[in-house]
């Protein structure tokens, strides 16, 4: 018997939703304020990083608008809806990924988009960032936790199948992020430490296999460039060297808004997309970046609070995994821009210019708000 059934029997005045205007329209006020702070602050940095182009800011504002609507819509749906739809969403995602491989469009030797007539061009792998953790959570939460070994194996299969399809596109970065989102579900479900240790051990073995058989030449090059950026100062190393210079020259207080010389003199490539942290670090200094990371941390903390207080394990697992995925975005982006991780093309969440990632992330926050605001409190 699932605990939902138990809840259904107990309808009546003893149960009620926490009140408040925002809660009634299923928005979590704390999370909403933090997100708006981040999005709004991001626009200032974007204005600077995009060479003071109002066009870029305006188009970003339009995207944020769309993303907010998406978040709102996702928040309205009851978590049970996500649970019921999980297998269908997952299957749909797999079909879309297969379709990408067959009829997808793209550039630079990678097929990532699906251009269906009547629909805007979209990237099914982006959709899987939500669908995979929801599916894994659906599967694991049907049974008692922690999961038995055989269920962990099935859950891993659920995670790896779309990963393989995404690697084929090829888009190793996204594949890893989708995989991680799924693995976080397994971790939060209570994967035994022994298995976790074994998993890391396998990853250690898999790394050289990946290096020799899976990774493409340009991906290896990125890793090698990270280890020694000076080896290719005109090519891939250029970005890292310039970005480190921008960050380092920002110092404690920064050079001031719109005063960054590195980014404004076009030394810094992609200053309004993946490398926007470097602009922030140059203009607002150490304080600015730490403030940004604090904001991210507060968002993450709120989301973990939501996860811990979720009413069922499905909600907990989904919220926990999505939160961790969000954190990984932050970590990988800042890590690569500051030169401790390879350049993998991960945008800075909610700040980098570009539509898809903001919409996906805001959809995830919508799901979390849904989990939080659809709780029924026993107050009697």
């Amino acid at each position, binding site marked *: *018997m699932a605990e939902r059934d138990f809840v259904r029997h107990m309808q009546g005045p003893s149960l009620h939703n926490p009140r408040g205007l925002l809660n009634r329209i299923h928005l979590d006020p704390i999370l909403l304020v933090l997100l708006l702070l981040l999005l709004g602050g991001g626009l200032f940095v974007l204005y600077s990083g995009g060479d003071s182009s109002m066009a870029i800011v305006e188009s970003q504002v339009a995207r944020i608008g769309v993303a907010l609507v998406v978040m709102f819509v996702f928040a309205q749906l009851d978590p049970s809806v996500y649970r019921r739809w999980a297998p269908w969403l997952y299957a749909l995602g797999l079909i879309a990924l297969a379709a990408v491989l067959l009829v997808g469009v793209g550039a630079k030797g990678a097929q990532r988009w699906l251009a269906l007539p009547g629909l805007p061009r979209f990237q099914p792998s982006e959709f899987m960032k939500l669908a995979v953790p929801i599916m894994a959570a659906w599967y694991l939460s*049907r049974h*008692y936790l922690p999961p038995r070994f055989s269920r962990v194996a099935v859950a891993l299969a659920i995670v790896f199948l779309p990963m393989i399809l995404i690697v084929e596109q090829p888009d190793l970065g996204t594949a890893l992020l989708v995989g991680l989102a799924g693995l976080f579900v397994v971790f939060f479900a209570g994967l035994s430490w022994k298995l976790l240790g074994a998993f890391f051990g396998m990853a250690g073995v898999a790394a050289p296999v990946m290096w020799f058989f899976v990774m493409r030449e340009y991906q290896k090059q990125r890793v090698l460039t990270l280890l020694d950026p000076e080896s290719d100062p005109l090519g891939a190393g250029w970005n890292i060297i310039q970005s480190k*210079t921008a*960050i*380092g020259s920002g110092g404690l207080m920064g050079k001031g808004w719109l005063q960054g*010389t590195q980014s404004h003199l076009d030394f810094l490539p992609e200053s309004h997309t993946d490398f926007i942290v470097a602009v922030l670090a140059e203009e607002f200094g150490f304080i600015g970046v730490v403030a940004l*990371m604090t904001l991210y941390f507060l968002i993450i903390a709120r989301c973990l609070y939501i996860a811990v207080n979720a009413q069922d394990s499905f909600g907990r697992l989904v919220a926990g995994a999505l939160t961790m995925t969000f954190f990984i975005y932050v970590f990988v982006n800042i890590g690569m821009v500051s*030169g401790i991780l390879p350049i993998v093309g991960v945008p800075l969440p909610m700040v980098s210019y570009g539509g898809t990632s903001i919409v996906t992330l805001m959809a995830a926050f919508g799901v979390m708000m849904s989990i939080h605001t659809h709780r029924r409190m026993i107050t009697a």
Partner: protein
Amino acid sequence: MPWGEFKDTAAERRLFQRRVLVALVVMLAMLGILVTRLYYLQILNHDNFTTLSEKNRVQVQPMAPPRGLIYDRNDVLLAENRPVFSVTVVPERVPDMDATLDQLQRILDISDEDIERFNRRLDEYRRPFSAVPLSYDLDEAAIARMAVHRYELPGVEVEAELVRYYPYAELTSHALGYVGRINRDELRKLDPTDYAGTNYVGKSGVERFYEDALHGQVGYQHVETNARGRTLRVLEQQNPVPGDDLRLHMDIRLQREAFHLLEGRRGAIVAIEPKTGGVLALASVPGFDANLFVTGIGVEQYRALSESPDKPLFNRALRGQYPPGSTIKPMMAVAGLDSDHTTWERTIWDPGYYQIDGKGRRYRDWKWGGHGWVDLKSAIAESCDTYFYDLGERMGIDVMHEYLDQFGFGKDTSLDISGAQAGLLPSSQWKRAVRNAPWYPGDSVNMSIGQGFMLATPLQLATATAVVANHGTWAQPRMLKDAIGAESTDEVMPKETHQDLNLKREQDWDHVVESMEAVMHGPHGTGRKAGADAAYRIAGKSGTAQVFSLAEGEEYDADEIKERLRDHALFVAFAPADDPKIAVAVIVENGGGGSSTAAPLARKMMDAWLLDMNAGEEPADTDKPIVAGQSEEESRSDG
């Protein structure tokens, strides 16, 4: 949910809380790493990065590798690098581009065309802070004027750049090819890193074929610049790897001889060393000065070259496709003998014409009244058409195609000569596909004396002649003798692919060569005038190619047309006949008869090579380093 399982909600909740705690700790540790990293960059190393960024900006500048030099076989420099001063602009540093360009136009002699070209380059992709060239080859007065006004012009620099220079100008342009500015298409194909500092790329000939070897590898330097972008000092540098130097088979003396011989005419001479396939001379006359093309030729100059009726830009030696005429009779003889369609003993009666099946259209021999009884040897020596009409008809197209193919006709058999044309070796399938008609016996008759559909380039004629000289052994024609540099010659040069031509009876080669000797030295040989008093034995064959119609687009001019309707004169030869050191193909467009116009030129080429130039033997001290000895050119190429 199956029986025996029930959810312990509280336990699950506790489990999850523990996991969240672990995740939180890990997350904080990872954030700690980021903060530490930022602390390291922004606080601990702030001064370093500030130095890099704020006060003096450090730039990574690519350093173009010096292009490999090209020498002839005697280490005479054919392509060198000369410093040229040019004005470049770094657009990022220019506050007001229009004003700056206006002022530059006042100071320097810059045409609107230059400005237009400059603006085009601005729109193309380039690395931030890379300089865009505006004007080349400043003279000293212009450099001085720039020095005076320099402080008013932020972002504008006078830069010294090594630019290709061809000391022999038009003598080498068709053989060596030349370099020019990298254009948009090339930019897309070239390695963006390796060509980061390079402005020139091989456009044709050796320069193009050996682009990879000649280019070298890019170097870079970290330079400190002040706020205005002027270089203050070099912090660190990784030197570029210069391109390989190339030594060609060509002998510039023989090349010059070929040019002199053709002076005032249109034509081509190709000389090959049969043993190696090395191209000793490759002349297409008239030529042009490749130096004009290196930094960009002016519209007027280009129009003069491209619209000249003599077509100086057209490489006749490689791309001129002519009916080979009688010069292919020795190869036809090889085909007829080896396929058992004729023998040395066989004779025919030549009444001055040939009729298929003894009736029908008459195919005329060049000699009115005919040669009488002729065997194969005299048919070659006297260039008897009738003998070959008969042979050709009996062989048919398939046999002729099979053998001529092995002599390299109808395809580009050159090893490393870029831009060589394939000519046309017809076959019955070809005629069906292209002309939509069957192959008639009359086509075979025409083909047997190198008329009709067949087309060959002078390079192909020289190659086929070298194959005869080698008794069937192939040495594919090549420009490169040695590469001197990072890569060995073997790595740089492509591998040979062409099969040798082995005959059933090896001695047939001797007879063919004897017949060709009879052309030059026999009592009735068509080349006996050119062969007279030679200090060595020559094997040759004359040819005359009919010109049927004007090339498209040529204007009507009675005198001109008269001259341009005249036959092309062809001649192929090799010498000494018993130990060939040179094989030559000569074509003089509208020169009339091959034996009268072309043969003397071939003779002079062979005299020059075998008598004056010591048979192309290496200078006594072959081990001397390649840089020594060329004092004059060498000292100019530095800098």
